[in-house]
Structures are given as C-alpha cells and as structure tokens.
C-alpha cells in the first residue's frame, strides 16, 4: 500500500464525513484498490460521443400544479430527533475552536 494512496483514502474519508479507525483505514484502502481494479475495466471501452445515461426511462420533466398541499405536523417530524429543543433539532457548536 503506497503512502500516497493512504493519504488519498484519508482525504476521501474526510470528504465523506466518515471517521475511520486506523485499522479500518488500512483495510478499506486495500479493498478500495481491488474494487477500483474491476471498475477500471470500463476504461477499455471507447465511449467517445456516447451520451451518459442518468435516467433509464426517457421521461419528460413533469411539472406539478403549484398548489400547497398539507405536510407532516411538526411534532411528527421531530419525533425521531436524537436531540430536540422546542421545535428545533439541536446540534453541538459549529466551530471546532475550544
């Protein structure tokens, strides 16, 4: 495992906001390399000028009527909140400064 790739894995885990323990990091890096190996197979294909498919069925964009519909009551929405303060979701401080 190259140092560079491990650093890259660290960078990606930060982008994903995904805390990996040191042993996890090592393991994921190895597996990532072998999975990217099969993914690289598609580089063999010439895709020049091929439109990418983001949606398999060619549906036109459907616009709905601009009508207000009822949505879930606030209490129900907050029912699963890990931490709640009145009608708000509560989170810890945003800045990392102690």
């Amino acid at each position: 495992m190259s140092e560079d790739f491990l650093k890259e894995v660290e960078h990606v885990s930060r982008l994903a906001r995904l805390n990996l323990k040191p042993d996890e990091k090592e393991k994921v890096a190895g597996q990532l390399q072998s999975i990217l190996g099969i993914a690289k197979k598609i580089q063999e294909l010439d895709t020049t000028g091929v439109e990418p498919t983001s949606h398999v069925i060619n549906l036109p964009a459907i616009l709905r009527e601009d009508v207000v519909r009822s949505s879930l009551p606030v209490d129900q929405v907050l029912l699963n909140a890990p931490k709640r303060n009145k009608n708000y979701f509560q989170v810890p401080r945003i800045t990392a400064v102690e």
Partner: protein
Amino acid sequence: MKLHENTAVVLSQLLAKKEVSAIEVTQSFLNRIGDLDPLLKAFVTLTPEFALKTAAEVDQKRINGKRLHPLAGVPIAIKDNICTEGIKTTCASRILSNYHPPFDATVVSSLKAIGMPLLGKTNMDEFAMGSSTENSAFFTSRNPWDPERVPGGSSGGSAVAVAAGMAPLALGSDTGGSVRQPASFCGLIGLRPTYGRVSRYGLIAFASSLDQIGPLALTAEDAALLLGAIAGYDRLDSTSLPEDVPDYSKELGAGIKGIRIGLIGENVDQQFDPEVNAAVKRKLTMLEQHGAVTGEVSLPLTDYGLGAYYLIAPSEASSNLGRYDGVRYGYKAESRHLEEMFSNTRGEGFGAEVKRRIMIGTYALSAGYYDAYYLKAMQVRTMIRRNYEKAFQSFDLILGAATPTPAFKIGEKSDDPLQMYLSDVCNINDALAGIPSISVPAGLHSSGLPMGMQISAPPSGEKLLLAAAHFLDGQKRGVPQRPQLEIGEGGSK
C-alpha cells in the same frame, strides 16, 4: 394441508369462498413464524397485533358484503428498508436501529388499502448493500434449504419468509439483483419491475437510478397479483412511469408459442457451476418443445456491467447516505462540535460494507476522478442499454442463469467483497438497463439446493415475463417445490 402451505392465490380463493377467515390465515402464518423464525431469522421486527387487527377488519368487511381485492386478508412480509408508519424501519443498520417513520411508503399505503395483514419487517444486508444478509447489523438470516447457507441478499429475509412458509408473499427491493438473487437461492419467483413501474416513495434510497421494489412469491400467479397491487403512477415519485397498469393476472396462461427467446451467449463469469448452465439449457429446450422460437443472443458488453455498476451504485449511495448525520433521525454520537458529530455518527453508525461503498462513491465523484469514473460508467450504461435494445429487435425475451451457483455457505465470501459482488453478476446488467427481469426456479442442484434462471424483457414487458414464468410453473409437478424443513416446534432441529 396446513393453511401456511398454500400459495397466495389459493388463500385468496379460500377467503373469497369464506372457507377460512383472514384471522385464521394470519394466525397460521404467525404460528409458523413462532416455530421457525428463532432458527431461520427472517424477521427484524414482528407485528402480530397489527396483522390480526387488519385481518379482523377484512373479515368484518367480508361479512358486510363489501367488495374486496383478491389479496384482502392475505398476509405479507416487507423488507425493512420500506417505510411503515409508526413501525420500526431499520435498513438493518445501527444508524436507523430505532427509526420509526412518520409516514408510509406508497407501496405500504397500497397494501393497507387492500387489507393485507403485515406480519413483520424482514432482515436484509445493511442499506441493501450485499448479497447474503451477512451485512445486516443484527444477524444473518438462514436459508431454509440448508440453514448453514446464506439465503442471498439483500432481500434475504423476505426470501426466507416466503420459502419457509412464514409468509405467502413478500416485498423486496432490487438495486443490482437484490430480489432476483435471493429468489434464486431460495427456490422462489423474484421479480424486478421496469424502473419507474413501482413507486420508490418511502423506499429508503440506496442508488436512486437503480432501486426498484419487487415481489417475492411461490408462483408467477402470486407475483402477478402482488405486482398489480403495487404498480402504478405516483406523483410522490418523480421517476414514476405515467403508464396504465395492465391486469397482470389476465392472460397469464397465454403460453409461449411463437415467443422468441434468446439464451445469452456470453459467459459472464468463469465460475459458473456446470449444473446451473445445464439446468438453464434444459429449460430452454423445454420452451422450444412447447413452441417458443429459441436461439442464442449476444450481449457483448456483459463483462463491463459489474465495473459500471460498482461505480454508479456507490456514487449514488455516497450522496444518498449523506443524510445520516445524527441531526434529524437515527443514531447520534456524542461530540464536541458539529463536524466531529457528523464524522463520528457515521463512523460508529455504519457497518463495514456501507463504509466501503461510501468511500468508493466519494472517491469516484471527487475532483479529478469524476470524468474517468462516474461519467465513464454512465456512458457505459448507455452502451449496455443499446446492447439490449439491439438484442430485443431479434428476441422477445432473454434468458440466462439467475446466479452462477446455488447458495453459498455462511462466512464463505464475507471477507472478500469482490467475490461477494460477483454473486450478482447475472443480475446487474438488467438493472443498469432499467428493464424488467424475473428469477424463476430452474430445478434442484445435486447438492439439494435450488438453482435459478433469469428471464428479461423490454421495458414494461412484465406481462410477457410473468406468462413465461407461469408456463414454467405449470411444467413442474403440482405444488411448488418447498424445502424439507426438519425443524420442530420452537425452532429446535
């Protein structure tokens, strides 16, 4: 014959003739669950009171002479990534282990309106990422044909429930084979509908451009009834097909005379069990003898599907799973500041496979790699679709193995993600193309385990798929093949 041994269609007839009540039917399945689930572990959550309440309402309506749907009073099990209002929906993940959705998925609303008693929520690979249920954060479900083997996945719990007679029908979801692969491992019918045919509203998202909900059933007739109950346009799903739903149960017996069926020529994996190949060829010969026009069809890009899939699905997953951050629902880690909370919540809440996929996806979407990986994969996806379009100019249906081998042993592949991914190799291309595809039983392997065959059709070709599957059902002896469970009361062997 015990009530729980019947197909959904037979139960529907018994109920309509008032020979049994919905309560009796539901109780029979609940008893079966009580006997077998301690060993087979199909369910994450059981909902017996809710099931019996629904059954009682159906019985009352029938007494009052109300017109009822054929599936009214026929119980069902639902995969635990489909939201059920007030009933825990975990995705078999620690991060959602105590999540009680405040709403029903559209398919759940449909089943409730019909009056199908909900027996419980079934086990799965965490966030539907896996092929064996071994990635469940809670436990591994066991294959009723051999409890030392996996039932397949990710909809493994749903497959176990139906195969073992703990539910006559179940819903699963199929992103890259998660309905068809466990159906094959458990000897069932598993249908992946055309992308957009069944609403995804309330199906917890894994890879949105691939996810589809589909039925697991004992017979094609049963699958047709259930598909009819859940298919249709839904304004809550922007990718929903605005097409009328045909009566899937009508003309099921149309037969296969004159239908052009192509066997996939490409050997997608060197590790195909020769018995599986032979079983598929036998079925093809049988179809030919009954009037189908058969031949070999080439899908030259078959080998590239896996690579494209393992870029597209993780990329979409890495984006979809961004919502699990400890703020609005789910597990939350204690932390000093916000970013640490996100990072720790996700690090502690997700299992190994989910983390792996988030990492692949984030990598493939990150600056400098987007064009080479994600965009390229989406272009290959277009080429795979065109492969199918060309193939369907010469054939009405395409046929191949549903899985390269019968069910593997628990633990056999759990340390090797690549080997695990390869077990879905037959199912991935159809998913990328968005076409409907069905897994049907293809007979028993010399090991005594079921083998599966897969049939695919052009978009919205479910009727033809079900007619072909129904024809094959009729060629088997009488009742569907069921595992011989040597299991006593209370789950003891």
